């Protein structure tokens, strides 16, 4: 929890906001993935490490394919945790968030999973198919290890739901910018997103980051003021798929520059 808190505070003092970058663990394989996260962490302030799943139903084609590649390389939960540990070995400060669907966690055993993840150096968890109704237990266990369960809020979330999300979530809320699945988008409904994020922050008093569809510096600049951080996933994963690491680096550079707007 401390790492996440420090991350927000430190950047705020510098007039920046966190760039949070998602990539799927062990895509295309675990050793290459380690190098990719090393590159990502040159620019990102926080990373989301995706745990591959056979049926990622909140994800668009780009991230689906990343999951397929990782699974084809023989990735399982244990290997994801080993990768996290290797990332933590060179990155002591920045928050590492595990993002994964619930079934592999359930099958691994919630408590063992949280404990092993803690030992690997994880700071928080995002489980997209675990809403507060099903995730309260998990959230309590995560918090008891001083880690952060991160819950999602969506454009369709009512005020009552947002209040509940604010109560169970850890250091921040992940606001899903669109009704839809992950994937790059040309344009976003910036004013609506800002209005909704203000609503979430007003109701919950929690830091709120925005994700889904953000793929360029321009997107961040267009709605810079309201969100407390910006998550980029598919645009990064697409470049990993293309093995275009030069292009990936220039994208990361562009995105990070955009989070220093103020």
């Amino acid at each position, binding site marked *: 929890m401390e790492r996440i808190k420090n991350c927000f505070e430190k950047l705020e003092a510098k007039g920046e906001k966190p760039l949070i970058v998602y990539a799927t663990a062990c895509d295309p394989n675990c050793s290459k993935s380690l190098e990719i996260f090393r590159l990502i962490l040159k620019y990102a302030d926080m990373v989301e490490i995706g745990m591959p799943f056979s049926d990622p139903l909140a994800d668009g084609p780009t991230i689906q394919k990343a999951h397929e590649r990782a699974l084809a390389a023989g990735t399982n939960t244990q290997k994801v945790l080993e990768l996290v540990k290797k990332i933590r070995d060179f990155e002591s400060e920045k928050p590492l968030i595990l993002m994964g669907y619930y079934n592999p966690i359930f099958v691994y055993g919630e408590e063992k999973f949280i404990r092993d993840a803690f030992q690997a150096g994880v700071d928080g968890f995002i489980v997209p198919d675990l809403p507060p109704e*099903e995730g309260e237990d998990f959230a309590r266990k995560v918090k008891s290890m001083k880690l952060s369960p991160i819950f*999602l809020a969506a*454009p369709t979330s009512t005020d009552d*739901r947002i209040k509940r999300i604010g109560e169970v979530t850890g250091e921040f809320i992940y606001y899903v910018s669109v009704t839809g699945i992950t994937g790059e988008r040309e344009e976003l409904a910036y004013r609506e997103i800002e209005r909704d994020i203000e609503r979430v922050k007003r109701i919950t008093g929690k830091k709120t980051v925005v994700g889904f569809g953000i793929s360029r510096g321009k997107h961040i600049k267009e709605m810079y003021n309201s969100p407390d951080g910006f998550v980029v996933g598919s645009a990064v994963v697409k470049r990993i798929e293309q093995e275009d690491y030069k292009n990936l680096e220039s994208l990361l550079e562009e995105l990070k520059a955009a989070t220093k707007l103020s």
Partner: protein
Amino acid sequence: MNSYPDSRGKFGIYGGKFVPETLMAALSELEENYYKIKNDPSFQEEFNKLLREYVGRPTPLQYAEGFSKYLGNGIKVYLKREDLNHTGAHKINNALGQALLAKRMGKKRIIAETGAGQHGVATATACAFLGLECVVYMGEEDVRRQALNVFRMELLGAKVEVVKSGSRTLKDAVNEATRDWVTNVRTTHYIIGSAVGPHPYPEMVRDFQSVIGRETKEQILKSENRLPDTIVACVGGGSNAIGIFYPFIEDKDVRLVGVEAGGYGLDTDKHAATLCKGTVGILHGAKSYLLQTEDGQITPTHSVSAGLDYPGVGPEHSLLKDINRAEYYAVTDDEALEAFQILSRTEGIIPALESSHAIAWVIKNKDKLEGQIVVVNLSGRGDKDVNQVREILEERRDLRLW
């Protein structure tokens, strides 16, 4: 038993709402509206009228004399003729109920997934009848196996979206339909075709399908003046089975048997016998038995019958298994193909490959069913399967009964 699911949508430890936040509001809206119409006489009246006049209910409970004679042992088999419904299977009961509900909710666009195509055809039919836009997701592999049903859906004005992700079967069609729903949730209702998915779907689908069991009870009491000894139904997701089981759950002397797809055999990894061989996990919004690896990845399934080719099962079946109120077994592709032919020859009824699994279990267990009254839910007709079975029997002449 009749109190399941509880207020959180749980059947014991099973069920629930494991979905992305974006869908939670839609599920609450659906739940609220469903409970409203569940107790609304005007809705029930309208629905029953359509079942009567449009679907052709009640379907007969037919004493299968020829098939009973074939079995011998004094077994009396009754067939619940869901194959005689409009569109040829039980799926229309649920599709029509949900489409009617969607219309009341003001949703003008309907999406559905389909495996064998029966639910897709039923949904396309209900939408054509009620004037709703319809999009059906179907795995590429199933599109190939059930080409005729694709054309039927198109004839009915539906758009068929071919799913090319994952194993390209029913499971992936559910994933893709869910992705559509997340995106278009404000205007769209998702008609899930089986008693699976997040709450309130398993309850709602069960309720719409339990007309099968209610009629069966009335009909068997009329013809036999007693309840049956055994009720047999095939189980993929489990909607026809829960439909016929549900009104009998409190009748403890009635044995309830669900028959899963054993594919090449339970000792291989090519089957879809979720309750026989699965472990507990979370898929498509609910906790239930699943076919999965020890790492929690969903495993590919196999069945000759596209409608049973699914790695999950309805949460209520998982509960019925755990509390030993229903028993679940599997028969192989070959056994189902044999039953397909036997019922055709002894009754003049070509059953769906799905329903053939239930028939096959009765044939296989005829020695243990001596003197019993057995009801088999003949959930669908086999016209859709004739071409596929012809191809198989041309290759596998050893399976032919002639």
